[in-house]
């Protein structure tokens, strides 16, 4: 069946934005797989609670590539909270529409984005915990050593 991709979709497919993988990214995520025919890998760099940079890799069809391209373009600079709830309908309307059978591509893109942000938050949380733990340990050691010296 004819897909009748919009000019904008084709543009984002043929010249996608933000492709690649960020070196030393703050978080990574992978969604989908080769078996079902669509896979997206995201990497992000975060600064002050905002997406400083986002890049993607794709094993997928034209709309898989185009949806990830336009979404990454739109969420750059956005707060993590806002980006986490990015509406897939927005991707569809930004592209000027997607054929019905390809709408799932936009859903996969936002799911991938959410996953990479959550991976970042999990990492942050555990590193904060680790820091706390480290602080406690250092204090204890410090106390012990002072005692030693006192003796």
């Amino acid at each position: 069946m004819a897909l009748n991709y919009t000019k904008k979709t084709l543009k984002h497919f043929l010249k996608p934005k933000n492709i690649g993988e960020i070196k030393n990214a703050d978080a990574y995520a992978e969604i989908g797989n080769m078996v079902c025919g669509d896979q997206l890998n995201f990497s992000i760099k975060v600064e002050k609670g905002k997406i400083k940079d986002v890049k993607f890799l794709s094993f997928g069809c034209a709309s898989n590539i185009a949806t990830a391209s336009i979404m990454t373009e739109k969420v750059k600079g956005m707060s993590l909270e806002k980006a986490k709830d990015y509406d897939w309908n927005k991707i569809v309307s930004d592209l000027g529409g997607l054929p019905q059978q390809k709408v799932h591509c936009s859903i996969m893109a936002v799911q991938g984005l959410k996953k990479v942000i959550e991976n970042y938050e999990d990492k942050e949380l555990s590193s904060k915990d680790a820091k706390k733990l480290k602080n406690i340990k250092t204090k204890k050691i410090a106390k012990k050593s002072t005692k030693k010296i006192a003796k």
Partner: protein
Amino acid sequence: MEVYLDNAATTKMDKGVAAIMQNYFLNKFANASSIHHQGEEVYNDLEKSKETVAKILNTKPQNLIFTGSASEANNFIIKGVALANKDKGKHIIVSSIEHPCVLGPAKDLVNEGFKVSYAPVDSKGRVKIAELKKMISKDTVLVSIMTANNEIGTIQDIKKIARLVKRNGAYFHTDAVQAVPYLKIDIKDLGVDFLTLSAHKFHGPKGVGMAYIDRNIKIKALISGGEQNDGLRAGTINVAGIIGFSKALELAYKNRDKKIEKIKKLREYFLKEINKNIKDVYLNGHETFRLDNNLNLRFNGVEGEAILMDLSNQGICVSTGSACSAKNLKTSYVLQALGINSNYLNSNVRFSLSKNTTKAELDYTVKKLSEAVKRLRSFSPIK
């Protein structure tokens, strides 16, 4: 540059065919079933063109039933033979890589109490004959195995299979839609009971299929309500279409050896150039038992549909067996039947040439294809 490499889907009609057909739209438009002089004239032209077809296929004109498509012809044969011969048994066998228009009616018959078995194929798409033999029982009415596959172009040994099936007491049908003109179709020599063709696959008109039937075997009509074709297929005779079918078949087999030699050489050149310019390309199907115009390739790490869309944007028309869609992530059941690793089912593209294909078109395609694959691989997560 416009390049059409999707000739397994359909072909461009020959000018000579279009010219002949036009006469039957504009001038000789009478109903072939009418007994007035105009109808009679059309009827006689029709009979002549049927004789031409029969002669090429080495059979008799009365054994040929023209339909609205190959899908209709396959439905007519599969359902018609099974339902008319219920007393013989209620089991049919089809290969696992048949076209959907064979698999569909076979599946429909399950609701009529039939059992359907699927004959397996090897990793290159050849039917495992020993396993097929084991599947045939006293209850088997009909076996249907395609002459050549539409996706991967693998050719079956139809003569051998037909002999085996008939020796074991079942009827045999082959869907030969992709075979013209790459294989000679001599119905008597092949020994088949039923055979299907389609005009638009060999530069004829769309909307004309053909069922060869053995008149000694019972068959039930799919479309009833008229006496055309001895009541086996009702509906006003598609005179222009059948005359177009006949002319296209005649032209297809004219200088056949020279024509297919040229196509085969071009395809081999095309594959050589692709391998020279692109890494990690794999051939699906058989190296030798293969239609001369078919090339089905796997490009690791990229999606077939993305390649298709990129090429399409450059004017090149190709096809992919798989398509991703929301409800139904369809990977090719043909490639699945070959046992290809599920990671590779979405990276395949079919190129199908015709007598109209030129070297310049293939050179352009190789250039654009290697650019597309390189580009898509540059941001693929699969290394």
